[in-house]
């Protein structure tokens, strides 16, 4: 009998976390390179909870969040230092906490002439090194295969890396992912210069998801209220006897 309260509680806790995930997706609607998170629920079965000849009790648990790596819409920015990856792959960025991978191709040139991202961290070339632009570089073009030229002179090749198992990568904020194993360079990656990849958030489906979370939460709550009513009735009636 007391299980009802805990079953609905398990649902409520999971649904709240799910709302947090949806809220984060919506908050990052306009974040370049952001990839949506989704939550997977799992059934946790407790065989000993029920009486011997009844069915076991199932609780719910928020088991995984997984990242939806589907492509986001491309937006034209006109900046020659912005790139979007068409198809799979990540750009590499060297941070103080090691290499991070990202789909965010908003780059700038630092005061030392190094190609950096918006946080000032150097962007990696195919060999995993920094990209140093020549002094006074003024006509930097990133071609489709990642070759960076200045006034027609090849400077470096922008690194694009692919992961065999992107789900094992960990989100670390600033649109970055970390991976336990270094990703392999992908020589066949296609880049689009002058574009950025917007977040792959579909506002309608996020809204629908939010509504269904809210409704499910109400239902879980109703469940515990019903159980509470039953308990109250039982106490009142048994007390009369």
């Amino acid at each position: 009998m007391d299980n009802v309260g805990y079953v609905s509680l398990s649902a409520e806790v999971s649904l709240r976390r799910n709302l947090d995930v949806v809220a984060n997706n919506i908050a990052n609607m306009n974040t370049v390179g952001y990839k949506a998170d989704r939550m997977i629920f799992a059934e946790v079965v407790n065989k000993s909870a029920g009486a011997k000849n009844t069915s076991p009790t199932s609780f719910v648990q928020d088991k995984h969040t997984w990242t939806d790596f589907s492509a986001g819409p491309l937006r034209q920015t006109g900046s020659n230092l912005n790139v979007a990856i068409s198809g799979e792959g990540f750009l590499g960025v060297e941070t103080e906490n090691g290499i991070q991978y990202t789909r965010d191709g908003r780059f700038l040139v630092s005061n030392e002439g190094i190609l950096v991202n918006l946080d000032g961290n150097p962007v990696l070339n195919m060999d995993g090194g920094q990209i140093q632009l020549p002094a006074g570089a003024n006509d930097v073009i990133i071609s489709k295969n990642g070759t960076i030229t200045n006034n027609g002179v090849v400077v470096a090749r922008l690194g694009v890396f692919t992961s065999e198992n992107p789900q094992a990568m960990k989100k670390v904020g600033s649109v970055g992912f970390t991976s336990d194993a270094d990703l392999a360079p992908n020589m066949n990656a296609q880049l689009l210069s002058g574009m950025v990849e917007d977040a792959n958030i579909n506002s309608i489906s996020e809204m629908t998801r939010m509504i269904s979370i809210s409704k499910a939460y109400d239902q879980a709550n109703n469940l515990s209220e019903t159980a509470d009513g039953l308990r109250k009735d039982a106490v009142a009636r048994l007390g009369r006897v």
Partner: protein
Amino acid sequence: MKALAIAATGMTAQQTNVEVIANNIANLSTTGFKRARAEFSDLMYQAHRRQGMTATEGGNVVPAGVEIGLGVKPTSVVRIMSQGNLQLTSNPLDIALEGRGFLRVTLADGTDAYTRAGSLGKTPEGLIVTSDGHEVAPGISIPENTRELTINRGGEVIVLLDGETEPQTIGRLELATFVNEAGLEALGDNLFRVTGASGNPIQGFPGDAGYATVRQGYVESSNVDSVTEITSLITAQRAYEMNSKVIETADQMGRTVSSMR
């Protein structure tokens, strides 16, 4: 219930976005203005169950954990230094820069600033100054008895004096470029100042390789594109609305809890 705080970061971010767009639209017809764009990235993540942990005694590894993001933050407001349209004014002291580079001006306190707004003027003494009266490097004085003034593509100031038949060159405008133009600090009044991020100015003359050429009788209008700005404004407004919807939902779920018996 983190959803409230997460949605709040979303609303703050969109507010910043609208502010930047508003400033762009307000400066639609400011000479030499360069539009800016607010850039965002996601905040840190909280792991409730980390991927890569062993899930069972057999050594099975959790393939994907539970990670919950904490919202969004504005990373930077990047100025987009693309060329603005040229606008014909026919004023001999109006110049537009075509290409990279800034005019160097000297502020009242003696420090240098840089500008692309080429609507120039003269002091009573004939010195070439900006429309706010800042001296334009290298400080060229136009003689009083000038009949015709020409500034050529190379930035050379050429005058034809009264009673003379040969024009003479009296100076050449200087330009400066920066490794990272987006790192310049905007001072208002169309002026920019050097920062640690922009790198030191690289001096040159108009027409040199990598520097702009000068076009007399034109000014460079702002590079704000009204259609783009309005579209971004609509996107920002909708995103703001949706974040407020999340707050509503989270609030409603909170209410459900507090009405629980």
